[in-house]
């Protein structure tokens, strides 16, 4: 068993990469218009398709959605991995610790801002400036909540207590948004509620560039933090005794996580589940806690899972699109339960 797992390791990343590419192409071929698989590949490779409409659909509509799914999966997974290591808690993740709720507060603040006509539509019309506004609001909201949790974590050493505090802070944040909604105009609320369903399709080409910059920066920065995160595996006291500056490590890790989770939440809505589940799946499959392996692998596993959920959300063979937020939970949770029951080592591998 053990030697089998070790054999699997060197092939893991190439295998995941191949899986990611295949799923991406499959995802691109899905939608209300049926485009053959080989045509999708041809268009992607820069060839000219006989059908100009197909080319437009693929490159202008479906490619941004697929790329958004890949980035969302990668960013949320990395955020979750960092939170789980920092708090040394297997239940930590962007959505549980209230980071997503903080993002919602930030977005609500922009969308529901009283009096102004700051609906999602008008923000989209603002172009890049508006995108930055949402990312900024969402990140600030996420950062605010995380900072609060960080402050409390200096007082509390117990991880379980810390987690409960995180959930409570998330509740307070959600309550504030509720009150805000209560006093807002129906049209503004509608925009906001649509946003909370989660959507990978609402990201325009321009916004995609911004998202790519933020997510790319976040993922690279986390990879640079591999050594720090590895040291934190032994707990903060040991990390400190090995010369790690805990205060800065905490601040940097939390900033990167809020940036990643904040940006994705801002554009795609609050997508739950992925952040918690992917790190566990990855650790369990690769049988390692080394972040130098885990970070690239989490990016791939996260992207694959998100693409898979997006494919389901498209409901292949129909023109219906379901809210992706619901799909990640409905599809993802049974997968995780199945894996826990089958492998029984999710806790052991943490």
């Amino acid at each position: 068993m053990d030697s089998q797992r070790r054999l699997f390791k060197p092939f893991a990343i190439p295998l995941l990469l191949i899986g990611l590419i295949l799923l991406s192409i499959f995802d691109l071929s899905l939608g209300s218009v049926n485009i053959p698989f080989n045509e999708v590949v041809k268009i992607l490779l820069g060839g000219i398709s006989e059908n100009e409409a197909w080319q437009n659909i693929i490159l202008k509509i479906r490619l941004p959605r697929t790329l958004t799914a890949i980035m969302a999966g990668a960013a949320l997974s990395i955020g979750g991995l960092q939170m789980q290591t920092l708090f040394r808690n297997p239940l930590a993740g962007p959505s549980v610790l209230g980071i997503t709720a903080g993002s919602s507060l930030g977005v609500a603040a922009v969308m529901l801002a009283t009096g102004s006509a700051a609906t999602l539509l008008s923000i989209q019309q603002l172009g890049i400036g508006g995108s930055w506004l949402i990312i900024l609001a969402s990140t600030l909201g996420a950062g605010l909540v995380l900072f609060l949790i960080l402050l409390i974590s200096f007082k509390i050493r117990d991880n379980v207590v810390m987690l409960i505090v995180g959930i409570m802070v998330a509740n307070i944040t959600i309550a504030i948004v509720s009150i805000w909604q209560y006093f807002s105009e129906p049209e503004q609320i509608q925009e906001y509620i649509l946003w909370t369903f989660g959507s990978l399709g609402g990201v325009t080409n321009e916004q995609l560039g911004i998202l790519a910059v933020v997510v790319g920066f976040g993922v690279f920065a986390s990879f640079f933090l591999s050594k720090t995160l590895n040291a934190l595996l032994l707990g903060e006291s040991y990390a400190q005794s090995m010369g790690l500056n805990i205060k800065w490590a905490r601040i940097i890790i939390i900033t990167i996580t809020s940036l990643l989770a904040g940006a994705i939440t801002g554009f795609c809505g609050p997508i739950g589940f992925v952040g918690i589940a992917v790190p566990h799946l990855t650790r369990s499959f690769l049988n390692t806690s080394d972040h130098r392996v885990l970070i690239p692998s989490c990016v791939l596993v996260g992207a694959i899972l998100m693409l898979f959920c997006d494919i389901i959300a498209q409901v292949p063979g129909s023109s219906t699109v379901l809210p992706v937020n619901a799909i990640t939970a409905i599809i993802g949770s049974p997968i995780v339960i199945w894996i826990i029951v089958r492998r029984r080592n999710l806790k052991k591998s943490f």
Partner: protein
Amino acid sequence: MKDSILHTDRLSCGYKSKKGASTILNDLSLKLEKGKLTSLLGANGTGKSTLIRTLAGVQPAISGSVLMDDQLLGDLSGREIAKKLSLVLTERVHVGNLTVFALISLGRFPYTSWLGKLNSKDHEIIEHALASVKMLEFANTHIDELSDGERQKVMIARALAQDTDIIFLDEPTAHLDLPNRVELMHLLRELTHKFEKSILMSTHDLDSALKLSDELWVIDRDHQLSEGAPEDLILSGKVEKAFEQDELNFDYQFGSFEKLPAAYTKEVSIEGDQLIAIWLKNALKRNGIKTIENGSETILIKGDRANYHFELKGRDGEYSTIKRLLLKLNNL
């Protein structure tokens, strides 16, 4: 050649809060001797952990200074301290998915590049650390498959991989059973003598500390610290003072604490094999029977450890075990 590797100058440690500082240990001028095993003893709450944390630079001193190799601790960066001093803590590390090798390689943290890549020298040091704690064959084992004793040895190997002259251990034997405790203490002794490591460990294990440490730091209930050879501190009564409690007595012959019976109900004398006599005395004492020269009864020990029984002088009957003998004595 200098004999101390770390010393303090009028160091006071404790906790700083908004209301002011609460000092636990005052005005310490200590020397940690090079290449020696020093044990830090003291009852709970006397400040052992505070002292270790302050000496390790994890907690700021209230006043005074700590000098490591004649450099002020406050002037050293975290990484510089990490190259001079490593820690082994009481808390159990909760990480399942690391191999022994991977965990020990974390000890190379202060030396490796930004990605933590190990070069051939790092590999050599890690393997040497593994060999030093005799865990070489466990290199690819996962941490969660180890026993508590093996786990603690791995944590010590991690400290060795950090390649520091000084190692602090905070109650390293707390979770271990007796054989593992003894083995660990001997391992630490070996490290001090073979590799010139200077080791300071806090412990509650009075027995092993008195037998195996080169040096003792004892903190008494008034937060006074005394240093010296274990035997000197026993004879001067410092050890007794540190742990004294109303109902407990310090046995100066064995270096351990015991509770004396409220009153002795009988006085007996013993004749026969010396070794059996020691354990018989122990049993008698526990049952409120004092052993004296001319007691009301005389117990005769017949035979030796391989085959023995007891008789009572002037009475009929043989008793094959201490338990049976005690039953008889209590019914006299």
